[in-house]
């Protein structure tokens, strides 16, 4: 019951800040979603840092048959040509519709910052109610002696710097898609 509520809250709050949310049933569906979205928007390239090699291979097959370019790492040299990025995120924070993404890897940072569209995959089991409920997990990261770069992402990039009029996609992604994957276990 509580899980259902969390999904509902997460969806409602994420949609309210402009995130496009879908519930899907598997990673395969997510890969297909990414490819279809790129085709629909007439985009050319995809990046998928952090996906395991099996999923990368499947995505490569899908890209090949759809005539899309799956970018190889390092992405830094192709920074100007990333249309869409597909990544996992670590947690969902329901009451603000926020995604938590451990982005220590430069590939993940570049992919999620420079892409026009960021598609985030999140197992529904990783949705928490509020920042208080991920505080311990975040602190575990921060308390390590190693460097870390952790992002809370809530909707697409936005600004209201000109006449206080909201405009989307000033420097970061113009669209943020959240795919809630139902059957994933933690």
């Amino acid at each position, binding site marked *: 019951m509580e899980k259902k509520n969390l999904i509902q809250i997460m969806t409602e*709050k994420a949609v309210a800040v402009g995130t496009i949310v879908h519930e899907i049933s598997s990673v395969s569906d997510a890969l297909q979603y990414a490819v279809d979205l790129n085709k629909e928007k007439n985009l050319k390239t995809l990046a998928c840092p952090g996906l395991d090699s099996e999923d990368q291979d499947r995505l490569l097959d899908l890209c090949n048959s759809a005539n899309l370019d799956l970018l190889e790492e390092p992405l830094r040299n192709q920074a*100007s040509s990333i249309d869409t990025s597909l990544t996992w995120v670590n947690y969902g924070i329901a009451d*603000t519709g926020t995604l938590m993404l451990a982005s220590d890897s430069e590939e993940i940072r570049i992919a999620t910052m420079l892409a026009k569209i960021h598609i985030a995959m999140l197992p529904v089991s990783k949705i928490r109610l509020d920042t208080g409920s991920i505080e311990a997990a*975040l602190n575990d990261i921060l308390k390590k002696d190693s460097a870390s770069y952790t992002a809370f*992402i809530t909707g697409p990039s936005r600004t209201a710097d000109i006449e206080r009029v909201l*405009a989307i996609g000033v420097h970061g992604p113009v669209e943020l898609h959240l795919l809630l994957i139902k059957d994933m276990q933690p």
Partner: protein
Amino acid sequence: MIKTAQDMKSYKKKIRQALGDSFLRSALDEFNTAYRENRPNVYKDIDFNSLRDIIAENKDSLIPFLEVLFEEFRLNAQKAGAIVHRAKDARQANEIIARIAKENKVKKIIKSKSMTAEETFLNDYLEKQGFIVTETDLGEWIIQLKHEGPSHMVMPAIHLSRYQVGELFEKQTDLKVDAQNIDKLVKVARRELRPRFLEADMGITGANFAIADSGTLGMVTNEGNMRLTTTLPRVHVALVGFDKLVSDLGSALRILKLLPRNATGQAITSYVTWIKGANQSLNTPFGKKEMHVVFLDNGRLSLSKDPLFCTSLRCIRCGACANVCPIYSKVGGHRYGHVYIGAIGLILTLFFHGKDNDRAIVRNCINCQACKEVCPVSIDLPHLIKKTYARVIKEEGKTPVKNFLLAKVMKNRKLFHFILRSAYLAQQPLSKGRPLIRHLPAFLEKDHGFRSLPTIAKIPLRDLWQTLSPKLENPSLRIALFAGCAMDFIYPDHGKDLLKLLKKANIQVDFPLDQTCCGLPAMMAAEEKTAKELAVKNIQAFEAESYDYILTLCASCASHLTHNYEKIFREAKEPAMDLKLFTDKIIDFSSFMDRVYKFPQTDQNMNKQVTYHAPCHLCRGLHVTDEPRALIQKAGYTYVPSKDEDVCCGFGGSYSVDFPEISSEILKKKLDNVEASGADILVTDCPGCVMQLSGGLDKRQSHIKVLHLVELLANKK
């Protein structure tokens, strides 16, 4: 380069220019209203007041230990590969950052928004050293192109229209820009700035939090430029004020609940980023970034030891104190701060940028308390502004004429009252027997003619008292009246109305004749010694133990007596005899009539529509809001709300004389809203507001009558 007026004459000139800027005026007026109207929605799931008190308390517990927190931060950040510096002032901070740039053979620098870097004028310094610096926050980029400082701490280019931005972009790109379309303007920035990110050698950011127990920086942003600034270049330098140190993640997350809500009305910003140490960077030989954190003192550590001003270090730079300020909404940030804007700017300017830059702006506070009400860390901003002004006067080493006169006159009640009585005679040629002076002599009319002025009564209330107030046998309550100067000398009729009401309820009212001005005008002029002497005199004049209540019909007096007397003696470290006995008995008119008098609901329908103006010192000073509106309805009138009822009327005592050009603009908006309500009568419960509002409506020759609530209630039957 920022040029803030350093004397009143040039300050006034700048104010007049701003008041003539029609885009600025409408943009900021709309913003002020929209921000306040949106707040209940933003805070519907959060208890703002209790959370801000918790945050303030937490900050206060850390402020004495900023150096300890710094050491803890340094150790933890260094373990993760960051290099941590401390700079004692702006110059040293800039030098450290330039040195880092040189050592790393940096040519091009990109920046994300940082008020701390604005504070040190970092860009100017780096550009002089030959670096190419590009601001990447949209607003900051715009003002960089315009060679201006920010006019708001969160929205730095709020003073510019899309067309002005379009012009700047056309000049920059040599391309035609569709300025009508803001989305397209934003895309110009995306297109133009993207290559700059990719080319830059070094990125400079600020930070919202420096978390000591992990050595992590927290950054709260919306555009995504900060993420690029901290990722693409091989060197990252964060410039952070010592005041951004918090002990742990929990403290930062708590502030994060209020910061975006208070700043931009968002539950959270698009991006909140936690960066610790030297992260991966694939364009460096070792695969890691060069990461530096520069902590700026620039007066913060000595502020942290100041018993009064240490609370200014609680500030989290949300900008809300400007958003709700009626003066900011008229003159804009370039006239309402130096680098830091809004109420907090009037304070911090003295400590970070010196008295010359604060001298004029610090005087421009009307004490309406709107900023204090929305401050997410409960800083008593209006009070600190006056204390800052007192410091400026002290540092200048010469007493302003106004303070000299205030001290001379106010400390001597008989002299003060003699002057007021003489004014009755002096004004006769101008008033021509009317209760209002509509036209002033020509040399005053231009600046001060925006409202008719009330006349001094022929016989003040204190002289009428003996004949008016008979002793009652077995009264139900014993009340002492604190008349306040306005009721005593301008509106004695309000006193007659009060007596009429109270006699009906068998309430004995006394008028202690040694009472004098409450002292608020002295405090507003930072004439602290006089304010204290007046407080002592009043406490002595009222034998508080003999009365059930000390009633005043002036909201400003009520709020001053209730809150400021306590502050005056606490700050002077002089315990005042009977202070608490005195202040505990103070009650404002609306509260008294509603809660104590229990004014009855009438069956009569008065067939008049009444709107209300909430005096600043009643609705915010004493948090009395429901009572006056309930009383209007109990008296048989139809209450019709008008827009922005709780926004200042622009009076502010001598503020309206010192800054008539701003006072008149605030009044204009107020009266436009009052007229739009369709009311026949405008009621308020402060004689100062009555003066301002009736003067303004008289000048407009409006049919709307202005009444003090006591007049409405007394004349009901």
